């Protein structure tokens, strides 16, 4: 079902995003032994700034198809924020299963670094605050939210971490331990941006960006693109199936949620998963912040809500451990391409399943759970991938 994939990640990419897209798509097509004319479905996602600093694009699916000479009979635009890559994989799978398309190209990523540059140096400064607010609205009440000073989206996850600590006594050290375990995995991954020894003390001693979150608990924005092709037929890749899946959308602004902010929509998406978690060989868990991974692991049901601190102390979450989590080091160590860590965790699942995770391969990675989580805990997609059964 997965016919080919490729990615490019760079700290700062100097060329156009279209160059990055063209290169990765070409490599993914080569792996699948396909040409653009063989592609009849295209799925992408859109976030402001990610396509060469453009604030808005009308038809992102067409934008990509037009540049690459693809004539799709099926397109989809997945707006699951950081979880989009995982949801795109699921939608492509469903499109092929239902016959909407035979070979779907999924493209996700861009230049995350351009947003900061644009905000600080150019373009937008010519606009008034109100004008920017009206160009870029995330919800119907933006004028009652953006008037306040925050570090969006760090502020939200910092508040989740603060509340988790208040309610359950979760410590800074316990969150740091997760970062340390992921770094252990990154140290065996030659593609990781951040490598080298890391201790709990190092994490705690790193600058507090927004209480209680430290610098080493937060992903670093990078540029990058992942392209993958889902379709009928066989390829050099191992035959892959989505064995179980669930998704959930929480559209409410987090101040209006009926559920406590220590819960993520994974609590709902995971309910739809019909698979014994004890049989999972690797967990690829959305990790823009340490606290995201911890709350997702709780919501997946690996432990009760509030018990994750003790859980990370009592289990080994590294590639040599009993519950391998974020086996390539995760986005915390790979960087976050275009604000979407789902890119990193989904590709790591592809690598592990195909025994291609050079240096950080988990033995017998037959069943892999991927959990995507969109910004401000608004979207969750949970997938179990494995061989067709």
């Amino acid at each position: 079902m997965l016919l080919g994939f490729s990615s490019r990640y760079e700290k700062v990419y100097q060329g156009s995003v279209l160059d990055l897209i063209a290169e990765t798509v070409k490599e993914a097509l080569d792996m699948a032994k396909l040409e653009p004319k063989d592609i009849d479905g295209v799925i992408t996602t859109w976030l402001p700034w990610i396509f060469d600093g453009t604030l808005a694009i009308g038809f992102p699916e067409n934008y990509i198809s037009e540049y690459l000479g693809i004539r799709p009979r099926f397109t989809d635009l997945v707006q699951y924020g950081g979880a989009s890559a995982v949801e795109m994989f699921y939608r492509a799978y469903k499109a092929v299963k239902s016959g909407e398309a035979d070979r779907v190209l999924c493209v996700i990523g861009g230049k995350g670094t351009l947003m900061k540059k644009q905000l600080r140096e150019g373009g937008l400064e010519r606009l008034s605050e109100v004008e920017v607010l009206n160009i870029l609205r995330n919800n119907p009440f933006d004028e009652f939210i953006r008037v306040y000073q925050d570090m969006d989206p760090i502020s939200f996850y910092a508040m989740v971490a603060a509340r988790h600590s208040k309610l359950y006594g979760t410590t800074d050290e316990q969150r740091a331990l997760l970062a340390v375990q992921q770094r252990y995995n990154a140290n065996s991954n030659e593609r990781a941006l951040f490598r080298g020894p890391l201790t709990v003390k190092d994490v705690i001693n790193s600058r507090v960006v927004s209480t209680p979150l430290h610098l080493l608990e937060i992903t670093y924005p990078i540029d990058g693109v992942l392209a993958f092709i889902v379709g009928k037929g066989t390829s050099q890749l191992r035959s892959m199936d989505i064995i179980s899946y669930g998704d959930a959308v929480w559209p409410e602004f987090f101040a209006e949620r009926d559920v406590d902010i220590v819960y993520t929509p994974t609590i709902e998406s995971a309910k739809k998963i019909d698979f014994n978690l004890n049989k999972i060989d690797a967990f690829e868990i959305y990790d823009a912040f340490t606290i995201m991974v911890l709350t997702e692991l709780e919501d997946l049901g690996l432990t009760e809500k509030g018990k994750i601190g003790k859980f990370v102390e009592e289990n080994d979450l590294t590639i040599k451990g009993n519950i391998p989590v974020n086996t390539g080091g995760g986005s915390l160590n790979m960087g976050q391409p275009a604000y979407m860590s789902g890119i990193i965790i989904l590709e790591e699942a592809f690598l592990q399943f195909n025994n291609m995770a050079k240096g950080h391969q988990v033995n017998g990675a037959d069943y892999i759970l991927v959990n995507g989580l969109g910004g401000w805990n608004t979207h969750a997609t949970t997938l179990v991938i494995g061989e067709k059964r």
Partner: protein
Amino acid sequence: MNLNEIIQTYYEYFNKEKLPYIKCTNCGYVFYYPRAICPKCLSKKLSIMESKGEGEIYSETKFVNEKGQVTIIGLIRLEEGFMIYANILTNRLEDVSINKKVKVKFKEVIKGQKFPFFTTIS
């Protein structure tokens, strides 16, 4: 009232240093972020109410802003049952933590328009 009228009423309340919220007279649901329709029952029978402006910190985080000032953003649960995401303004950082009591304080942030902020209660 349509949405723009409700938003206008909110702005007028703010400038009078009153904190508005909306109560659905059909189902009783209470909410802050302005809508012309109840998100629970879709009734248009809504009343704009005035909050006492007192509540507790549900969660908060402190960071240093671009000017080097310690800034606090938090979620405040008001006594009437709704929640607001806003800055907490205080010099007493030690008084800012989850469950601590706060009250509303208005501040002009856009020319001619005040907005609600919160401050600690001694």
